[in-house]
């Protein structure tokens, strides 16, 4: 990928007093990427996002947005940022329209363009019907969407979302995910969440941080497609276990609930091919043959758990 780098973070550290929240993090984000930001509670996700959004100053390290250093020229850099904190920053006593208007002003959108910007943000976030209502009277899902509209109103190059789908119903979650994908096409998006499948469906890249350090930074394809070392198979008339174990590359066979079998193998396509061939030849009546990919959840737990085991 050679599209422009929109966020550059180098050796970012942040202390709260003596507590080290973030320690020497560095990563880059390009246009058109959606970055899933994962980590257990207290890993430093929110702190990192606050630093990138300019709400906190880093103790050391550099952050650049669209090639502009956030500390040298904060105004230029912040104009390219949209940030939705964990708690959407809403004025409950304003209506949605008033609120978005003032956000447009705050982001220095020229007066003639404001109306259009507000209308666009509203239609993007599905807020057309609630324009004249007070934010304080809206449901949580709608408030979340108003917060999102606020973050994208000035068409920022980078959108930072801190747990945007918390407390939403499944349909709203789908809509928000769809919106995030859409944003990801023209902008760069950083998304923090605890919902792992969300990362798998929405993000292009995963960044797992743990104890303030980066534990993993990889494209989602690689994480999910990691090495396949097991197959899930099911037969209508299963062969004896020994017949399977004799196949090339097979390391072990275990029986799963529901009569299916898990075949562990050394890797490569040879085992799957052999099972198919033998099933036809031996009349085992193959019902299912699925490569089992390590899920993101597995990767996440492995990383965090391994680290905990090392630490103790």
């Amino acid at each position, binding site marked *: 990928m050679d599209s422009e780098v929109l966020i550059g973070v180098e050796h970012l550290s*942040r202390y*709260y007093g003596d507590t080290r929240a973030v320690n020497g993090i560095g990563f880059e984000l390009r246009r058109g990427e959606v970055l899933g930001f994962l980590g257990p509670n207290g890993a430093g996700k929110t702190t990192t996002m*606050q630093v990138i*959004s*300019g*709400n*906190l*100053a880093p103790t050391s390290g550099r952050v650049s947005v669209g090639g502009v250093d956030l500390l040298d020229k*904060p*105004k*230029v850099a*912040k*104009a390219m*940022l*949209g*940030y939705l*904190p964990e*708690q959407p*920053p*809403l*004025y*409950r*006593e*304003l209506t949605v329209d008033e609120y978005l208007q003032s*956000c447009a002003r*705050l*982001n*220095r959108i020229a007066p003639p363009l404001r109306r259009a910007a507000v209308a666009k943000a509203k239609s993007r976030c599905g807020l057309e019907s609630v324009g004249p209502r007070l934010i304080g009277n809206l449901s949580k899902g709608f408030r979340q969407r108003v917060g999102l509209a*606020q973050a994208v109103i000035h068409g920022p190059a980078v959108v930072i979302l801190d747990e945007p789908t918390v407390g939403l119903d499944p349909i709203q979650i789908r809509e928000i995910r769809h919106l995030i994908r859409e944003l990801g096409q023209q902008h760069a998006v950083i998304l923090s969440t605890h919902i792992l499948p969300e990362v798998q469906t929405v993000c292009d890249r995963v960044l797992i941080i743990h104890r303030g350090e980066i534990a993993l930074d990889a494209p989602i394809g690689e994480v999910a497609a990691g090495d396949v070392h097991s197959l899930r198979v099911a037969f209508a008339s299963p062969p004896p276990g020994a017949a399977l174990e004799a196949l090339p590359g097979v390391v072990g066979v275990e029986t799963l609930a529901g009569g299916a079998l898990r075949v562990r193998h050394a890797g490569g396509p040879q085992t799957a091919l052999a099972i198919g061939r033998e099933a036809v030849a031996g009349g085992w009546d193959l019902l299912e043959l699925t490569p089992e990919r390590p899920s993101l959840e597995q990767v996440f737990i492995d990383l965090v758990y391994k680290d905990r085991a090392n630490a103790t």
Partner: protein
Amino acid sequence: MFLSPLAWTVLAVVQFIVAYLFLTRVDLFLQVQGRLAAMDSAPGLTDIIVAPALGNSAVVLLLVAPLLTMRLVSEERRSRTLSLLLSAPVSMTEIILGKYLGMLAFFGVMLLLITAMTLSLLAGGTLDFGMLATGLLGLGLLMASFAALGLFISTLTEQPTVAAVGTFGVLLLLWVLDWAGQGSMGETGAVFAYLSLLRHFQPLLQGVVDSRDLIYFVLFIATFLALGIRRLDAERLQG
């Protein structure tokens, strides 16, 4: 600001109290009118009614200003909307100045109402406009100082009530410092007295414009605005 009932309530209450104080002065004037007519160079309408009325409204404002300024920053912090301002392309200075100017505009409305009341005297007499102008200037500067101090204290805390009590305490202290100065403490007493807001407000009510008083107010305002900006910045740095 005008969307909240607080603003209207405060305006109404202030106006009511100031009007009452104003009326008592008018009453006093009517009582002594006969004697005044007999005096040479008798004090005029402005001396007897306007100056004390403005002086009294200053005390009322002292009570009210903390209520108005308490929410400026602390409320933003409490409802987590501060991050909206911090991640927007505006500097800390702009945030503080914007808040301050908003507050001044509100105090301006209040000053306008008070002015209108004093001008109503024109219906039955003449006023010393020079003295009225300096009095209003003094009251305006005093309001501006209250607002600056209140804004600064509001940046210190997350609780609007704490900000209100703090602002009120400091304002009252600055007000009564003058009394301490009147004791027999000599040098130190004079210093305290000099710091008092009241000390610099009184001459303006009497129609005396001393540039030292004006500079005092300007410095007072600038100091607390600068402290407010520093405070917000420090928060970003230390968290």
